């Protein structure tokens, strides 16, 4: 699974992207956030939201190995 970090989330983590072998027991966005939050607590910030395959996703949205996921902080606007 390709996971991207946008804006100041990338700064906080010191990287812009990881490739994750999605564990079988990670079924939805919230579980993924908790898993990654163990190593990267900045992802647990409630203002950080998640995009799955180009659409903003709720915590309950299912995730699959071939999804592209992005964690993003509040937008700056144009």
């Amino acid at each position, binding site marked *: 699974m390709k996971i991207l970090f*946008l804006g100041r989330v990338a700064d906080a983590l010191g990287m812009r992207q990881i490739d994750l072998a999605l564990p079988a027991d990670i079924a939805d966005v919230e579980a993924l956030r908790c898993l990654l939050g163990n190593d990267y607590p900045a992802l647990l910030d409630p203002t950080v939201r998640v995009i799955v395959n*180009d659409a903003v996703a709720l915590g309950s949205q299912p995730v699959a190995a071939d999804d592209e996921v992005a964690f993003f902080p509040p*937008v700056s*606007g*144009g």
Partner: protein
Amino acid sequence: MIRVQPEPFDPAIELDALAGRAPGAGAIASFVGLVRPSTGETTVDQLILEQYGNFTLATVNAIAEAGKTRFALLDLTIIHRFGTLSPGEAIVFVAAAASHRRAAFDAVDYLMDRLKTEAPFWKREQGSAGSHWIEPTPDDHAARRRWELKT
């Protein structure tokens, strides 16, 4: 026509192109946003904008469609740049073609207010105060709320 791109654009060419696509228009209004050379007493050397591919484009498209419907536009153009920009560079172009001037003026104002608060860009200023991320100001949000009022 909606574009999100790193390349510079020429507002005069874009205005002509819009006029060409909207031959029945009675009014075209346009806005060009520039990178400011300073924020308060802080000098800005560079403005760095990140976007996220299809997500950013889809959101800008949705804002454009809402403006087109709300003001019965014949056509419109939004061009928004990303990447590293210097003070004075044009960063955003919005133009609206309508039958009458009021709709054209209002549409540009509305589109800019929505872009300023909702467009998925992440902006960082690099300057005399170091580097910091930018979020919409209270004034930006107040401007956006004007369009929620029923008049």
